[in-house]
């Protein structure tokens, strides 16, 4: 959440030559015996898998950028690195301002706790202050439309209801940088529209920089002004949204 106000403040997100190496070792090391076997085979701990390979791009303040690519090409990984959940193996990322990461919602949710308790727990993890949550609890509940269920344990919720709460907490305040990973597909049709409206209102405000991942190319073209195409961890193309989406579609022909 650190606000970095040094050089080149016109970019909200800078991704500099980022690579991400994951551990593909077939299983975790669960015993000493395994340890020695693997030590002998030289595949102790680590079997490399490169999910991102030297990716670089910059998102100017207030721009809405899309990120496209087929399944497993590294989009979610890229977003998690920007959100600070993952640390890149090489390269660096600079983010200027507060991030609202709509990547994996509901961090820390405990099914035994009530919705109210979970709002505070999740809010603390998102970096909100207690006073802020106190003040906006009503708004969150209102947006999720679950007022009558606030003191029910989350385990009795449907998955869509959990997603509503999670989305409501994460978007209760206007962030500087919004990162969206297909979260729009949660909840019923009405709530999806409500989520999209909220994101649209962030975009319309002009203050929010948005990085947007969706498999719906139409949605990307509608919402974004520019786009990056990542394929199997490699950056294939970057530019105006029309051109990138056009090229992305044409790869299948």
């Amino acid at each position, binding site marked *: 959440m650190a606000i970095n106000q040094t050089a080149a403040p016109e970019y909200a997100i800078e991704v500099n030559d980022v690579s991400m190496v994951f551990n593909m070792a077939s299983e975790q090391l*669960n015993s000493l015996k395994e340890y020695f076997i693997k030590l002998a085979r030289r595949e102790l701990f680590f079997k490399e898998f490169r999910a991102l390979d030297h990716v670089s791009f910059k998102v100017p303040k207030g721009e809405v950028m899309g990120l496209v690519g087929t399944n497993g090409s590294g989009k979610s990984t890229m977003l998690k690195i920007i959100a600070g959940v993952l640390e890149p193996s090489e390269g660096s990322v600079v983010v200027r301002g507060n991030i609202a990461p709509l990547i994996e919602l509901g961090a820390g949710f405990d099914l035994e706790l009530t919705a109210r*308790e979970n709002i505070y727990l999740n809010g*603390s*993890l998102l970096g909100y*202050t207690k006073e*802020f949550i106190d003040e906006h609890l009503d708004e969150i509940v209102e947006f999720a439309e679950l007022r009558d269920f606030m003191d029910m344990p989350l385990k009795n919720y449907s998955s869509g209801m959990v997603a509503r709460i999670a989305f409501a907490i994460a978007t209760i305040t206007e962030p500087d940088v919004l990162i969206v990973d297909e979260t729009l597909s949660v909840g019923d049709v009405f709530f999806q529209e409500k989520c999209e409206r909220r994101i649209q209102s962030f975009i319309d405000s002009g203050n929010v920089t948005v990085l947007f991942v969706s498999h719906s190319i139409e949605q990307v073209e509608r919402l974004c002004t520019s786009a990056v195409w990542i394929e199997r961890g490699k950056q294939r193309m970057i530019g105006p949204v029309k051109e990138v989406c056009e090229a992305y579609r044409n790869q299948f022909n």
Partner: protein
Amino acid sequence: MSATTDLSTTYAKSGIAKDVFILRQLVTKDFKLKYRRSVLGVVWSVLNPLLMMVVMSIVFSYLFGSNIENFPLYLIVGNITFSLMSDSTNAALWSIIDAAPLLKKVKVDRFVFPVQKVLFALVNFAFSLIAVALVMLWFHVMPTWHLVWLPVCLVLLMLFCIGIGLAIGSLAVFFRDIIHLWGVVILAWTYLTPIFWDFSLLTSNPAVPSWIITLVKVNPMYNYITFMRDIFLWQQSPSMTTLAACVLWAVVMLAVGFVIFRKTEHKFILYV
């Protein structure tokens, strides 16, 4: 929507403020989950050390402790102090592995998880202090001003436990063997610590080799328990040796834990 909200109050002002709020939420969660479904609830945390004390008094007073004044009080103080260490480290051992779903979802300072477990053990310890008060009442042992040392002792013991928790919590991510090993360590440690026996039994017995006596003396838990017994039972300030040993162990363990944690924390997410 809150475009009007002052941003400075929306987000925690510093990393520390954020971590403190997270820790409060996490410890509250542990507390609620532990007591929500139980009829007697927190009463158990008072009752448990009392029952242990009764059992141990019956078993051991004829063996080791007959010459100790207020032997049950001796037992309960030793026992709850040792339990504070064993409970907190046993929980911290799993803390990072258990936090995996959270670590994969959100950016968070990873040290909060071992610390959360140690703080939660401290909360339970607070309830067992009620049991100690009851026992003191029963034996007409009046509390004295020496109890002002209690926070000092607890802070040192907490730092010691956090140090262990950071170390074993991190290592357990990479070597699950640590989990099995730690049970054995705690068991050996229980016997090496004068919880239900009297240290003078060792020193007065010429058959005991001197290295065992030294081992017990440098044993950090011996020192923390002696500290606790000094202020609760013998109503005196801790000796300089005890105090120095407690400080030294707290600092050393915290440093060791911190270094191990720092060296490994960047790789947690690749292994959990």
